[in-house]
């Protein structure tokens, strides 16, 4: 019972975080006031070519040196600072959010098709796996994750979300079931390009985790959205699947449906299920994910969790509830509820 929200402007026109804050808060019935988070693309134009690493330090005095040393080993830190925050009466601060603007040294990942991302991936895996009091919560260019334990409006006010401007926003209103005290547990989860918010609980976490971990990913938080982010990165970036096909691999059609398809399509879908059986996600979920050019929404094959899509001008909305979309866009032009297994894919104009 979480609430999720995503909005994208196809022409990269900026939206500040205030509307997203309102949209997420209207779904407070779906949360438990113990966690919320936001991610926005386009927020760091001054450092657009750097990887922005958002890090939670248990205690910067003790752990910052470890992260500094790791980053300097793998590239150059252009700038780093504490993420500006504004104390909220009901928000118990238990870590220090920090941000680095970092240039990875591509020569350290020879032979890779995307060496910078491989370097960043390795850094994230290394830091997050270690018991070093540091957790990297986002690691992409011109993107940042802001999350904490509290109601959406408290978390938004804590980070002053309204001061950031992005062209894609995802947000998550958490109904906590475990570790409410950990600020890294609410969605969004991010790995460089891709950010993920999920309303659901996949029953295949173990199988999916075993699968991605055999490709060198390391699931350190135990959350669905972490494994989903890694699955998308693996399929879309490393295996080069078109995002359509990647979604189909994660939430494939039933065999009965495949049997009825024309032959070429049948072959393609069978091949996807053959190759990615262990990546298939099962159980109830609605996932909204984004990278700098795309926002996607998809559900489990039975659509056990809600997904509402709104369109208005250049804006595409995907949310758990229509009311969230209407809160941000009262004059929304169209509202649709895609059928189970029907993904939504929005792309920014090139």
């Amino acid at each position, binding site marked *: 019972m979480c609430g999720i929200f995503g909005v994208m402007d196809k022409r990269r026109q900026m939206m500040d975080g205030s509307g997203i804050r309102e949209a997420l808060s209207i779904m407070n019935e779906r949360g438990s006031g113990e966690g919320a988070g936001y991610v926005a693309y386009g927020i760091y134009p001054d450092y657009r070519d750097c990887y922005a690493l958002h890090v939670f330090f248990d205690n910067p005095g003790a752990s910052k040196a470890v992260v500094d040393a790791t980053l300097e080993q793998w590239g150059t830190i252009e700038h780093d600072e504490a993420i500006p925050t504004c104390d909220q009466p009901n928000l118990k601060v238990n870590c220090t959010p920090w941000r680095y603007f970092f240039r990875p040294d591509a020569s350290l990942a020879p032979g890779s098709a995307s060496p910078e991302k491989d370097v960043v991936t390795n850094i994230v895996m290394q830091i997050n796996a270690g018991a070093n009091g540091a957790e990297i919560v986002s690691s992409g260019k011109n993107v940042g994750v802001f999350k904490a334990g509290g109601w959406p409006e408290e978390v938004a006010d804590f980070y002053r979300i309204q001061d950031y401007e992005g062209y894609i926003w995802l947000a998550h209103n958490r109904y906590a079931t475990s570790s409410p005290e950990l600020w890294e547990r609410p969605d969004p989860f991010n790995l460089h390009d891709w950010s993920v918010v999920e309303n659901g609980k996949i029953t*295949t976490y173990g199988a999916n985790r*075993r699968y991605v971990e055999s490709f060198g990913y390391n699931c350190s938080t135990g959350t669905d959205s972490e494994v989903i982010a890694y699955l998308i990165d693996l399929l879309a970036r490393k295996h080069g699947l078109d995002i359509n096909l990647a979604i189909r691999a994660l939430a494939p059609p039933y*065999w009965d449906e495949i049997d009825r398809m024309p032959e070429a399509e049948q*072959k393609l879908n069978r*091949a996807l299920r053959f*190759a990615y059986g262990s990546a*298939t996600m099962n*159980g*109830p979920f609605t996932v909204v994910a984004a990278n700098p050019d795309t926002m996607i929404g998809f559900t489990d094959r039975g659509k056990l969790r809600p997904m509402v899509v709104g369109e208005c001008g250049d804006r595409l909305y995907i949310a758990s509830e229509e009311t969230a979309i209407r809160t941000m866009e009262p004059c929304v032009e169209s509202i649709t509820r895609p059928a189970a297994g029907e993904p939504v894919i929005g792309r920014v104009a090139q």
Partner: protein
Amino acid sequence: MNSNFGSMPLRYRISIDREQCMECGRCVENCPYGVFRWDGDRILINSRNCTACHRCLTYCPRDAIMLQEHPCDYRSHPVWTRSVRESIYNQARTGKIILAGMGSVSNLPIIFDHLMLDACQVTTPPTDPLREPVELRTYLGKKPSKLDFTQKPNGDVELSTELAPNLMLETPIMLGHMSYGALSLNAHVAMARAAKETGTFMGTGEGGLHPGLYPYQDRMIVQVASGRFGVNIDYLERGAAIELKLGQGAKPGIGGHLPGEKVSADVSRTRMIPQGSDAISPAPHHDIYGIEDLPQLVNSVKEATEYKKPIFAKIAAVNNNAENVAAVARSGVDAIAIDGFRGGTGAAPRVFRDHVGIPIEVAIATADRELRKQGLRNEVSLIACGSIRESTDVVKAIALGADAVYIATAALAAMGCRVCGNCYQGLCSWGIATQRPDLVARLDPDVASKQVANLIHAWTLEITELMGAAGINSIESLRGNRDRLRGYMLDEGLLEILDVKSVGA
């Protein structure tokens, strides 16, 4: 030569309630072991011949017959147990290796029974299999690790990865390899029909393919074992898949043994061996002395069948199982069947049956882990076998990493087998593990096939319910999903090897 042992204490005692008995003589007719005989109008009993096959009990119209195991006590002793002492007496008398039938009888804990399954409660809804699809369809064979596409001139992408041949199963339960020769033709026909009816496959074992099974050949996995009995190109071409038998869980490291008594004229023709001769397959394949020889055999079988059929390999689960599996996965085979130490057999030396090998639960877990670690998991499907007793064993084996299972003893039991363990005598009263025509005729293939099909169907329904309760609606989402298992009273070392958390964790 005589011994000074005299007669051993009775293993079983048969008694007849003379009040109930109506002297119909069905017990005399039904017992092939000679327990009952007429003495005038009275039925006499020789309990010493009894195997506990229960045939007499089931056909006694008055429930007058009773069987008691170990009616005579030895002095109890925790070290010098009855079976230890009796083995010594036996070997002191004969100087021979003791042969035994069926699977291991050692009283070791069964890991399956210490693994608990998961179900959904509030954070996820269970799936209701009566109203929503739950897919058990299983494909066995090589799967691509990633897919390649080519761009067509019009911009569309087209899959360029060619898929290797796979077997499509409607349920992840197959009927394991038991040879014609060890089993009767009626038993084979019954299982073949059941495989066809339930959309699954059956193994021929190493005894060739009798013409009576040709109508079901597209449901048969033909086996090539070290004795090469019954193997020719016609045999290979008839099978839906071909399995190279490299080992057997009941007797790792040694070959097979079909006693000459069971080599009837028909068995002789099917196996291509002389009638009445013992069929002893060698311990190794004499063309495989090293792992590098296995790909040659795999490739020659693939060449012979034009790469149209999946090739399986079956190995026994032993200490270096993970290494063996990784080695075989590189040989070009499409699936590996792993046979645990509790696997059944018609005849095996007792010491092998009870002391050599490792449990299937561990073997599957380590195989799956090693294949994933080496990036080979999609190269082969894994089939678990060796003491799969019920539907929960199937679910647990798959959650530990198997793609499908072979059942064998369970299928025999579905046809009436009482697991008496005397298959090697060739006198099976149920007409299953015998070639004696009058006994074979006792097994009606129509009836027996229905029973086997019923069993597979019932397990399939139970698996569907268990998956639905766990919120899983396709079998590949169960595979290797060890998160959905918990170990109950398993030690920490074993939990780590199984990669399963303890209950409560």
